[in-house]
């Protein structure tokens, strides 16, 4: 299956082809600082790295010089001002965990309390690695399933000799509720992505662009639709200002106090 998920190995091969300075396979948990960026993109996280080390290098991950690595990770934190600190932190946590396991294995076991099995700290690590190895494999298997629109495609024929009636439009309620939920979500993302202009202005903005594509250039009064009264003029004016502010329109004035000509941005250069 050519579409299988790239393994860490393949991903790294790409990095090598791309001429990244980093071409060495990692030997242990130590990551050269200049390779950190590539590294963080290559591995899905510390568990991924550990599995890689176990599989490729046959490395005994408890046999790593933990003190050295810890020191190096601490150094990254100093180096990383605007890098992906959170990700590196996860590696750091992992290194610390390994250090803890190692120290507990080395220390003589405290006399266990009655019946309580002083569990070996390594068991948890093994459990997690196994669980993650399974997930990785499951992901590859999942990706290999025939997928709609990638491997298989819906077979359709037109019912052309008779008219397929169109589905009814959505209920206004459905539309507005969906939008209201989006607004609430978007508000969490950023408070000023969606600002409130009156809808009449929004609608007019589209019409102004439409008119200008036709007329090429116009004056404000040309865009005002007769019979709309002062409110219509105000709406047109506001719509024009908003379009200028968004860089969609350009205003030209040949001389002070001369009439202002409105054009679509970029239209004059053609």
């Amino acid at each position, binding site marked *: 299956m050519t579409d299988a998920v790239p393994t860490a190995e393949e991903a790294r091969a790409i990095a090598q082809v791309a001429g990244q300075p980093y071409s060495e396979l990692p030997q242990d948990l130590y990551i050269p600082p200049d390779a950190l960026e590539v590294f963080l993109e290559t591995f899905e996280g510390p568990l991924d790295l550990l599995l890689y080390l176990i599989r490729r290098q046959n490395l005994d991950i408890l046999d790593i010089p933990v003190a050295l690595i810890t020191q190096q990770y601490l150094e990254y934190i100093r180096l990383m001002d605007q890098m992906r600190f959170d990700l590196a932190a996860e590696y750091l946590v992992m290194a610390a965990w390994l250090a803890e396991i190692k120290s507990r294995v080395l220390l003589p076991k405290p006399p266990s309390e009655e019946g309580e099995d002083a569990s070996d700290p390594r068991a948890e690590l093994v459990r997690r690695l196994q669980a993650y190895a399974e997930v990785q494999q499951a992901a590859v298997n999942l990706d290999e399933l025939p997928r709609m629109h990638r491997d298989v*495609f*819906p*077979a*359709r*024929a*037109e*019912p*052309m*000799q*008779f008219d*397929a*009636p*169109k*589905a*009814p*439009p*959505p209920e*206004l*309620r*459905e*539309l*507005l*509720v*969906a*939008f*209201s939920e*989006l*607004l*609430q979500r*978007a*508000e969490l*993302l950023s408070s000023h*992505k*969606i600002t*409130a202009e*009156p*809808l*009449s202005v*929004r*609608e007019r*903005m*589209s019409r102004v*662009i*439409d008119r*200008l*594509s036709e007329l090429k250039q116009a004056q404000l009064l040309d865009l005002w639709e007769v019979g709309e009264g002062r409110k219509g003029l105000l709406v047109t004016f506001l719509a024009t200002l908003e379009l200028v502010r*968004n*860089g*969609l329109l350009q205003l030209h004035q040949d001389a002070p106090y001369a009439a202002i000509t409105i054009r*679509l*941005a*970029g239209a004059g250069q053609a």
Partner: protein
Amino acid sequence: MSKTDPKEIIRALLLVADVPLTLRRIEQLLGDDRALSSRQIREAIMQLQREMDGSSVELVEVASGYRLQVRKEMAPWVSRLWDDKPQKYSRALLETLALICYRQPLTRGDIEEIRGVTLSANILKTLFEREWVREVGHREGPGRPALLATTRQFLDDLNLRSLEDLPPLPELTDPEKLEAALVRLAPKDQVMDIHLQLAAESQ
């Protein structure tokens, strides 16, 4: 794969394409690896046509090329597909449509930015097909992206006189005001229903 019957490839292409395919296009899609002459392709098409004799599908040539269609004898059954079941519009489509409505004119990129996900081509296609959305121009800048806006058809289909009839943005985030606006917007004969429904719900 190299032995795949060109007839079957053509069948697959016609079943998946959403527009008729010209002979030239079919030739192109078959690829250089199996340089077939137009004559060979036409023969494969005729073979397909013969195979479909007596089935409910036919391969026809229309002005813009070849396409598969369900025979009109099937109309009594096929038309039932649309009788019931109002189509359910996806959340993504509704959000996109509402955004175009409230933020027009805007580009596809604007929509993606606000919604935080890539916009599938299908959604825009549906909106254009229904003539609810149109392009009104282009924004200057890299790629000159198209500016999208709603249409008269959209207003008609949703029973609105103008966009002004829709509740203003601030009302949308307040559930109570939204409810009030919806009642206000509902066609007269539905208002009673909604009142009754609300009354029933509040009990």
